[in-house]
Every structure is written in C-alpha cells, then in structure tokens.
C-alpha cells in the first residue's frame, strides 16, 4: 500500500507544555499563599484583592484549569497525532485552542481577585468567560474529531476513547451548570435556586473531577507509561473494560457530595451505591497501570520519569479508594466540612495529576528537543522533594480534619458540647495549617527545580517543529471481519458526526425545557420564607464577592452536635430564593445559616473590621474596605427584576421602590449602630452585609409548626 508522508505538529505541544509549567508554578504559589494565610492571617494584609476568600477560587481554577488543563492539551496534542498517525486537522484551530485557553486563564486571574465570581465551586468564572470556555472547548473538540476522521490507523487506541469521553462530558457539564441569568457585564445569577442549585453544582463538581482530572489523565497514563517504559500496557483488554465501566458509572455518583442534606434519600443512596461500584474500574485501571511496569522495576529505580508515574498511579489508587469510603454516610458525617476533604483532593491533585504531569513532561520535553534531560540528579531531587511535600501536606490535613470533627461532635457527660466555642477547634489545628504550608512549599520548590532543569534542557536541545512521519492511508472501504454489516454506510465518518449532532440537539432540548421546570418549582413550601429585601440582596452579593462561602457553610445538618451548636437544622424550603445557593463545602469558620439575630449589629461591625477583637485567635481576614466604601446601588433595580424573572415573587414595579427601601433599612442599621457608639459611614457596604447576615435563617422562626418539617 502506498505510504503517505506527513508531519506531526510539535509546536503546539511545546506551547502547551510551557503554559503547563508557567501556570503550574503560578497556581501552586497562590495555593501556598492561601495556605500561609490560614496559618498566619496577618498575611491577608487587609488588602481586598489578596484576601483568602478571593484567592482561594483563583488557586483552584489555576491548578485545575490552567495547570492540569494545559497539561491535558499538551499530552493530548502529542499523543493524539501519533495514535491516529495524522497531523492535527487544523493548525489554526490548534492555535485558537491555545491562545483562547490562555486568554480565559488571564481573565480568571484578573476577575477573581477583583471579586467577580458566581460563587459556584470550580465554576466561579462569570458568564462572559463561561461563553468563552464553551467556544474554546468546541474548537478543541472540532479539531480532535476532525483529526479522528482523517486518521491513518483504523483502531482507536484506548487513550483516544478517554479523550473523546472527556470532551463530551465536560461540554455537557459546563453547559448545564453554567445556566445563569446575566444582570450586567460580569454579574449573573444562577438559574437554579437553593437545593436545586446545590444539586446541579455538585453533579458538576463531582463530574468535573471525573472528566477533567481523571479521564483525560487516564488516557495520558495509557499512552505515556507504555511509552516511557517501552513496553505495552499490562492488559489491553482490561484497559477497554476499565474505560467503558468507568464512564458508565462515574456520572451517577455526584449526590455523595450532598449526604445529610435536603436531597431525597433515594438520590443520596444512589450516589453512594455508584460510588462504591466505582472502586472496581478505578482499581482495575490503577493495577493495569502499575502492572505495565512488571519486570521493569529496575528501570523505575533509574528513571525519574517512571518514578513520578508510579507514585502518580499509586496516588490515584489511594484517592479512588478513599473516595468511595468518604461517600459512605457514616464516614461522611465525620469528614464533611473538614480538612479531611482537603487532604483527599490534594492526594489526587498533587499525587495523581501533578506527578503524572511531571512524569509526562520529563519524558516529552527531551523528545521534543531531541536531547537528553539536562540533569537526572535534579529530576530525582524534584521527585523526593515532591513526594515529601505530598506527605507533609496530606498527613497534617488528615490529622486536622479528624481532630476538628471529633471536637465538634464531642459532648460532655452532662450532655453539653465539650467545645461550645468554635474558636477552640480552630486554634487546636493551627499548627497543622502551618505544617501543611511547609508541605506546599516543598512541592512548589520541586516544581521550580523542574523548570530550571527544563530551561537547561531546552537550551542544549534542538527543537523539531514538524516531525516527519509516514504511514499508509486508511483503506477507503472497510473489510469486515465477518459478514457485511447493514450499518456499513454510517460506520466511518458519519458516526462521529451523528454523535456530535446528538450532543447539539440534546443540549438545545435540555436548555429549552429548563426554565419551565425551574420557575415552577420555586413555589415556597414554607409560607414565612420571604424574598430578601433589596439591602439584604446587595449584602448577599457582597458575601459572594468576598467569597465568604469558601470558609463558611450555610447548611446545618440534622445532627445533635450541629443543632446544639448552630440551631435548627436547615430545611429545603428555606433556600427557594437563593440564586445561587451558598451552602459551601468547608467549615474553616462556623456555619452561618442560623447566625441571624445571634449577635448585635455592633458585633458584626467590629468583627468585620478586625475579627480578633470579637473572637481572639480568629484566622478570618479583616474587611476594612467594606466599612470605608459606599454600596454600589446602580444595579439594584436590575437585580430585583432579574430575580423576578427567576421566579422570586417581588411585586410588579418594585424596582422603582427598591432603592428607597434599601436606604431606609441601611439608615435603620446605621442609627442602631450609633446607639452602640459606632459611627458608621452612610450607605457603607458593611451595612448591607450586616442586613444579610442578620436575616440568615430567621424566616423559619415565624413559620407555623406544621411547615417546619
């Protein structure tokens, strides 16, 4: 058969690799800063742009979408071309993919510290950026599918399947979760409210871990480990079973993030059952990766690339064993809202994603530059420092999480909370926070050593932009192994087109039916639950802007230890006007759902100005700017009308009266503060925040007994 000559595009791989390194170090640095802020709150410096609540989403977005995201693209663009024996379909699309993705990251780096956030975890970016993500993701998919159609290798290697699954699932998740109503440029409200918003959020959150941090990396594992070890995967058949079992199970496990909430019990149980089942394919894949190195352990001892990969796969095994464990209700009751979860995700993030990325880069960069790695010694140093970093990170966090949770739940013999003051449980684990930062510092140091090693490698190398290759063309007609199939006409190119058009149609259909579904379900089940006043609504938006939900939950679970500490447990009907929900997932500080009326306004005022005056030992940042700045009310009428569109029953024409009501309530709080000898600025932001905090969880107190259930 005639051989065709073509070349692989290495430039795009190189660019994505550089971006991976750059954003990796940046994202880890931001992580180190916020870790230090928890141990030493003075490091917030009273500057709004670098306060913990605003930097935390920047850290998560940077490491997930910038570091791992670019790592995915680098690895996929390298392996896909070689697996399909074809150059990427379009260099232009590759370039748009690259620059578009970097632009999205830059806009995140600017907008998150400025306080533009939707508050939804791992989907904090505001609506214009959401649209940009959709476009760039489609460009990536278009480029990938078109390359698949032009491939010179009939068989799609298992890695390619993992990439396809990644594309399809992320497209769907992003669209469903980002369904929001813009109020202005860079401000929107989630279309869903309360429980529903929480459910969509964690359906997304769980599957983002599944299809952004797991499936693409499994694809990379199945390509790069055999390449680096120069031996085939242990069992190719197992890898195929791994793929199909994993993608059919993963998507149903999301509800395990909402155990003990208002989510129906059957949905919680379903999530748990699927989470347990996930153990089988996860460990099948993990073992398949490790066993690939059977008989090659001597190579692992020598080669830092393989060392990184072995630890990565081991970390994957640990994280996927722990995941099902954490989705058991009785374990979750202890682990949820604590640093245990933080430890869990960092074993996955630092171990699995980080180390596999490093392993791939240590193998790929010398190949791209046709040279040897500058220093194996430095790479080994990176490996050991990085491994120590993971241990120093994870162990203190497990310890902190378990300690704090047990303290929260401890009762005295008299039946009182043993540690009624939340602060005691925080000061207890401060040392662990400091130790964790040290682990982060080690890990970051390792990454910097790697960058230096690569700079030296690149300097001594000779980059090959277009790598010549040759392969016979795919025969035009497929000769089936058995008899002729009826579907032969569709099985080549049209199949992928069919899949693509199904996605488009499906997404369109879902989006169309969504509003009718959702607005109807906003009918309150507790009659005393009323929409927020304009001032409270603005205060709520400030709460979102400052990222308070990163450290404070608004979900009192039905445990005696929680109802004793916080008050009545949270009911689904209380959140029907919450666009978006603010349940949170971590209690670095106490739950706030029942904080309304608990302290006087003056307490909140002083606490926001300097938390230590009200709670000595507090690690909360201070918020002086909220006291000095006037509340921006220019968008209040638009916000009211947007909320009405979403089904919140503000009376028709209320927009015109909203501002008057807002100023009235603001003045009332101000004069109240005056009585406590606090001279607050007129229309200061702090007044709106106080209004919101004092409203939280109070509506239900006036509800008739029958509705409280």
């Amino acid at each position: 058969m005639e051989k065709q000559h073509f070349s692989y595009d290495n430039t795009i791989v190189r660019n994505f690799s550089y971006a991976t390194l750059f954003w990796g170090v940046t994202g880890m640095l931001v992580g180190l800063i916020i870790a230090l802020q928890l141990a030493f709150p003075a490091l917030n410096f009273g500057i709004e742009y670098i306060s913990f609540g605003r930097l935390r989403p920047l850290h998560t977005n940077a490491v997930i979408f910038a570091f791992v995201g670019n790592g995915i693209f680098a690895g996929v663009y390298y392996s896909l071309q070689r697996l399909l024996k074809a150059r990427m379909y379009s260099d232009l699309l590759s370039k748009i993919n690259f620059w578009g993705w970097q632009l999205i990251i830059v806009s995140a780096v600017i907008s998150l510290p400025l306080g533009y956030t939707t508050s939804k975890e791992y989907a904090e970016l505001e609506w214009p950026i959401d649209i940009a993500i959709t476009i760039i993701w489609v460009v990536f998919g278009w480029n990938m599918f078109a390359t698949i159609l032009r491939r010179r290798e009939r068989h799609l290697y298992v890695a390619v399947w993992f990439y396809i699954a990644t594309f399809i699932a992320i497209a769907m998740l992003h669209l469903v979760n980002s369904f929001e109503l813009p109020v202005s440029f860079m401000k929107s409200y989630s279309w869903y409210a309360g429980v529903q918003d929480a459910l969509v959020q964690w359906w997304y959150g769980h599957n983002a871990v599944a299809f952004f941090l797991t499936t693409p990396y499994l694809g990379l594992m199945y390509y790069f480990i055999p390449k680096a070890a120069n031996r085939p995967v242990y069992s190719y058949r197992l890898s195929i079973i791994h793929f199909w079992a994993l993608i059919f199970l993963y998507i149903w496990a999301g509800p395990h993030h909402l155990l003990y909430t208002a989510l129906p019990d059957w949905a919680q149980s379903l999530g748990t059952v699927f989470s347990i089942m996930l153990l089988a394919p996860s460990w099948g894949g993990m073992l398949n990766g490790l066993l690939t190195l059977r008989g090659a352990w001597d190579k692992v001892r020598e080669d830092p690339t393989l060392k990184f990969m072995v630890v990565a796969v081991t970390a994957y095994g640990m994280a996927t064993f722990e995941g099902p464990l954490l989705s058991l209700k009785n374990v979750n009751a202890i682990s949820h809202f604590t640093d245990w979860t933080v430890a869990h995700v960092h074993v996955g993030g630092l171990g699995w994603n980080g180390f596999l990325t490093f392993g791939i880069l240590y193998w790929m960069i010398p190949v791209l530059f046709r040279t040897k790695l500058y220093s194996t010694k430095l790479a080994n140093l990176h490996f050991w420092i990085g491994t120590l970093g993971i241990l120093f990170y994870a162990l203190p966090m497990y310890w902190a999480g378990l300690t704090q949770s047990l303290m929260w739940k401890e009762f005295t013999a008299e039946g009182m909370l043993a540690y009624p003051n939340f602060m005691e449980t925080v000061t207890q684990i401060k040392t662990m926070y400091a130790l964790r930062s040290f682990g982060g510092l080690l890990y970051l140091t390792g990454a910097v050593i790697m960058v230096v090693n690569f700079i030296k490698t690149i300097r001594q190398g000779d980059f090959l932009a277009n790598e010549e290759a040759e392969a016979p063309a795919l025969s035009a007609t497929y000769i089936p192994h058995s008899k002729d199939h009826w579907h032969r006409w569709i099985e080549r190119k049209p199949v992928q087109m069919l899949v693509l058009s199904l996605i488009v149609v499906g997404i369109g259909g879902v989006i169309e039916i969504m509003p009718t579904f959702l607005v109807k379900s906003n009918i309150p089940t507790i009659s005393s639950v009323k929409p927020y006043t304009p001032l409270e609504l603005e205060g709520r938006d400030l709460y979102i802007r400052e990222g308070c939900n990163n450290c404070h939950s608004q979900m009192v679970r039905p445990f005696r230890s929680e109802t004793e500490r916080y008050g009545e447990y949270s009911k689904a009907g209380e959140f029907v006007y919450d666009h978006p929900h603010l349940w949170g997932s971590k209690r670095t500080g106490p739950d706030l759902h029942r904080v309304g009326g608990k302290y006087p306004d003056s307490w909140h005022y002083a606490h926001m100005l300097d938390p230590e005056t009200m709670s000595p030992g507090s690690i909360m940042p201070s918020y002086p700017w909220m006291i000095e700045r006037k509340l921006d009310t220019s968008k209040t009428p638009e916000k009211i009308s947007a909320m009405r569109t979403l089904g919140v029953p503000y009376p028709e024409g209320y927009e015109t009266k909203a501002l008057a009501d807002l100023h009235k309530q603001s003045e009332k709080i101000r004069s109240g503060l005056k009585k406590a000898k606090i001279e607050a600025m007129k229309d200061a932001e702090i007044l709106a925040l106080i209004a919101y905090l004092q409203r939280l969880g109070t509506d239900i107190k006036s509800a008739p007994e029958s509705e409280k259930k």
Partner: protein
Amino acid sequence: MSVLYILIIASLLVAGIFLLAFIWAVRNGQYDDEYSPSVRILFDNKKSTEDKSEKTD
C-alpha cells in the same frame, strides 16, 4: 426537586452517546484484536528508508 429530571436526562443523554459509541466500536471491529494495538503504539512511524511491515487487513 424537579431539577433531578434535568440532571437525569442530561446524564442519560451522555450515557446514551457513550452507549452508541460502544455499539459502534464493537460492531466496527475495534475490539477484535485485544493485543496488538498495545504494542503498535510503541512504534512511532518515523520517516525512514526501511520498509516497515504494516498491517493492511
């Protein structure tokens, strides 16, 4: 909890797409050979003067 319907529909849609892809893969003969693809990826088709034996079935 009507949003559950949307999530279930969306999840089923994705699962349906994967199911179609699975049926296609099996019928297309993607999995007839469960060994050699794992070895073939180890060889990069670098341009060379040697004649490589390529499968042409």
